[in-house]
C-alpha cells in the first residue's frame, strides 16, 4: 500500500504519478479537520470528495481544494472502485490541477487548515469589496478548512488571503489546554505586563500551540505576555508593578490559560 504525506509529495504530482502508472484504487487523504478521497480507474480520476464536519465538496471543486492542501497524510488502496463518477477524466483533470496549483501558489494561507479565524487586533480602517465583506461576516470562529469547504473554494481562498493579508482576520490555532493553577511569585524588577512560568511548562505549551501565545489570568482576566524562567515549578512570576495593578500578593493562587 502506497502511503506518505503531501508535505513531501504534493497532491498534483501524486495524482499525476498515479495517472501515469495507470492505477486503479482509492487515494485517501487525512488532514486535521478534513478528509478526502480520490478514486482512479485505469489511471483516470473518476471521483473526488472532500469533507469536514457536516460539509462536503465533490468533483472539480474538490480537486481545486485538494491542490492547495500542503499537509495531509495519504494512503492509496488499490483495486477499490468509485461509488459514482463526478469527474470526466482524460486531460481535463491534470489541466485543472495545474491551474489550481498555480492559483494556490499565489496565496499565502496558513498550511494548517485547522487554524481558527478571528478578527484581527489592528485598529486601522480598510476598504473592503462587498464579496470580502460577505465572507468576513461568516468566518469568525470557524476553521479555515470549514470556510474553504464551500462552492468556489479558490475564490474563497483568495478572499481569505486578502483579509488575512490586510490584518482584518487572523488565523490562530484552536487551543484545548486545561487551565493550570499556579502560586504567585514576585519578580523584583522594572517593567510590566510580563508573566513568567517554569521553563518545562512553557515548553509544554509551546509544543502544543506552535504559535505565539499569551496568558490569561483568572479570575482577574488580565492578558499578559508570557516568558519562560528557570526553577519556578508551580509558580507564576509577576513583576511588582503588575502585582500592585492586579491586587495580587505572594502565594495567591491564580488559574492561568494560554491564549493565542
Amino acid at each position: 500500500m502506497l502511503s506518505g504525506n503531501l508535505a513531501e509529495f504534493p497532491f498534483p504530482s501524486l495524482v499525476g504519478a498515479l495517472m501515469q502508472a495507470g492505477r486503479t484504487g482509492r487515494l485517501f487523504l487525512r488532514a486535521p479537520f478534513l478528509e478526502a478521497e480520490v478514486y482512479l480507474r485505469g489511471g483516470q480520476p473518476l471521483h473526488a470528495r472532500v469533507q469536514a464536519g457536516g460539509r462536503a465538496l465533490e468533483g472539480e471543486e474538490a480537486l481545486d481544494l485538494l491542490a492547495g492542501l500542503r499537509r495531509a497524510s495519504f494512503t492509496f488502496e488499490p483495486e477499490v472502485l468509485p461509488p459514482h463518477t463526478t469527474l470526466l477524466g482524460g486531460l481535463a483533470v491534470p489541466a485543472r490541477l495545474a491551474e489550481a496549483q498555480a492559483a494556490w501558489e499565489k496565496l499565502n494561507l496558513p498550511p494548517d487548515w485547522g487554524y481558527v479565524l478571528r478578527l484581527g487586533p489592528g485598529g486601522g480602517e480598510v476598504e473592503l469589496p462587498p464579496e470580502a465583506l460577505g465572507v468576513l461576516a461568516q468566518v469568525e470562529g470557524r476553521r479555515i478548512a470549514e470556510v474553504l469547504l464551500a462552492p468556489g473554494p479558490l475564490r474563497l481562498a483568495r478572499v481569505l488571503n486578502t483579509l488575512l493579508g490586510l490584518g482584518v482576520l487572523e488565523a490562530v490555532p484552536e487551543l484545548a489546554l486545561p487551565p493550570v493553577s499556579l502560586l504567585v511569585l514576585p519578580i523584583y524588577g522594572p517593567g510590566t505586563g510580563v508573566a513568567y512560568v517554569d521553563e518545562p511548562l512553557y515548553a509544554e505549551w509551546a509544543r502544543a500551540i506552535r504559535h505565539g501565545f499569551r496568558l490569561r489570568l483568572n479570575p482577574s482576566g488580565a492578558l499578559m505576555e508570557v516568558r519562560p524562567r528557570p526553577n519556578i515549578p508551580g509558580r507564576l512570576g509577576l513583576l511588582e508593578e503588575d502585582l500592585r495593578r492586579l491586587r495580587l500578593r505572594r502565594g495567591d493562587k491564580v488559574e492561568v490559560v494560554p491564549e493565542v
Partner: protein
Amino acid sequence: MDILTLNEGLNRIVYGFPMKLVFLLVGAYLVIFQIRWFSAPLRMVRVSFSETLGAIRERAYGFGGQITPFQATMVALSATIGTGHLLGMLAAVLLGGPGAVFWMWLGYFFGTGTKFAEATLAVHYRRRFADGSVSGGPMYYLSRGLPRLRFLGHLFAFFAALSAFGIGNLSQAGAVGGALVPLGAPPALVGLFLALLVGVVLGGGIVRVARFAQVVVPLKLLLFLVAVGPLLALYGGRLLEALALVFRAAFSPEAALGGAAGYSLFAAINAGLGRGIFANEAGLGSAAIAHAQAQVDHPVRQGFWGVTEMFLSFLVTSLTALTFIASGLWQEGGSVAEAAQALFGAHPLGGVVLALTVAVFALGTMVAWGFYGEEAAAFLFGEGIRWPYRLTFATLAFVGPLGGLEAFLAISDTLNGLMAIPNLLGLVLLGGVVGRLVYGFFRGEPWVLPR
C-alpha cells in the same frame, strides 16, 4: 606547651575582642557595600518580610527540591536558637550591664548582612547530585568560589565536622541532662533517649531533619513564650524603663549605672558584641549548610530567609534581656545559674519551665548540628562517612548527660570559633558575587548557575 594551653590561647584569640570587631566589620562591609541595604532601606525591609513571613502560607510548596525554603530556615533556626539565647543572654547582661544589649543589637544588625551573604552564597555554589539532592555551605562556596584558595573550604569542613561533636553535641546533651536530671530523670536514660533520637532523625537525611526542625522550632518559640510571657506581664511596667537604661548605659555605663556597679564601656561592648555575634552564628557559617538545602529559583530569595532567621533570634535574645533588666535581678550579680533561678523563680511554673525550655532548645540545636557536622564530614571524606559519623554522633549524645570529656569540649569550642576565620575571609572575597546576585535579583534577572 601542652595542647590544652595552646587551645586556651587560641580560644582567647577566636573569641577575643579583636575577632569580634572583625565579625562586625565584615558584616558592615557586606551590608553597606555589597548588599547595599541603605540604597533603599524601606524596600529591602518590605521585600525581606514579603519573601519570608509573607510567604509563610506557601511553606509546604517547594521549588521541586527535597525541602522547602521554609524548612531549610527551620533547620537553621533549630541550631541557632539555643541555650545561648537564654542563659548566654543573662550572662552577657551580668558581664556588661544593660548597655551590652545595645551593642548586641549592633552585632545583630551587621550580622544580618553576614547571614544574608552566607545563605545566598550557600545556594549559589551548592553542589547538585544526580538523585536531586544537594549539598552546600561554606565548604562549597569557599572551594568552588575561590578555586585558588580551595584549602579554606577543607579547613572549614574540618573545623565544623569536629566542633559538631563537642559544641553541637556534648555540650547540648550536657545541657539537656543538666535541665532534666534535677527533675528526676536518670542521666543514662536521658543519654539513651538523646542517642536514639539523633540516630533516628539524622538517619533519615535532610528530609527527616527538616521535618523534625519544623516541629521543634515552633515548640521552642512556644516554650519561650510560656517561659517569658508571665515574666513580661510581671515586669511589663518596667520595660520602657529597661529600654531607656539600655540606651543610657550603652555609651556611659558608669554615669547611667553608677561607678560602684563596676561596669565599663569596654565590658558592655565586649559582652554585647559577643552575644550579637555568637548567639545567632552569623559569620560562623554553620547556618549556611542548612540554607543551601533550600530549593529556590534565586539564591537571594534564601538570603532573605537568613534575615528572618536573624530577626527571630533577635526577638528571643532581646525579650530575654529586657525581661531580665526589667526584673532588676541583674544588679544582684552572681552566676548565670543563680540569676536564671532567681528570674524564673517568679514564674508560676517555677524552674520547671526553664528546665523544659533549655532542654528543648538544646535538643533542636543538637540535631541540626549533627546534620552540619555530617555534611562537613561528607565534604571531606565522601558519602561513605555519613553512617559512621551518625553513629559516632549518637554515641557522644549518650555520653553528654553523663558528663566528662571536658578537654575535648574545650578544644571543640575553639574549633567552633575557628570556623569563622575561613568563612569570614571567604565572605569578604566573595562579597562581589553577593553584590552581583542582589543587583540581578532586583533587576528581575533569573539566576545563572556558576560555571
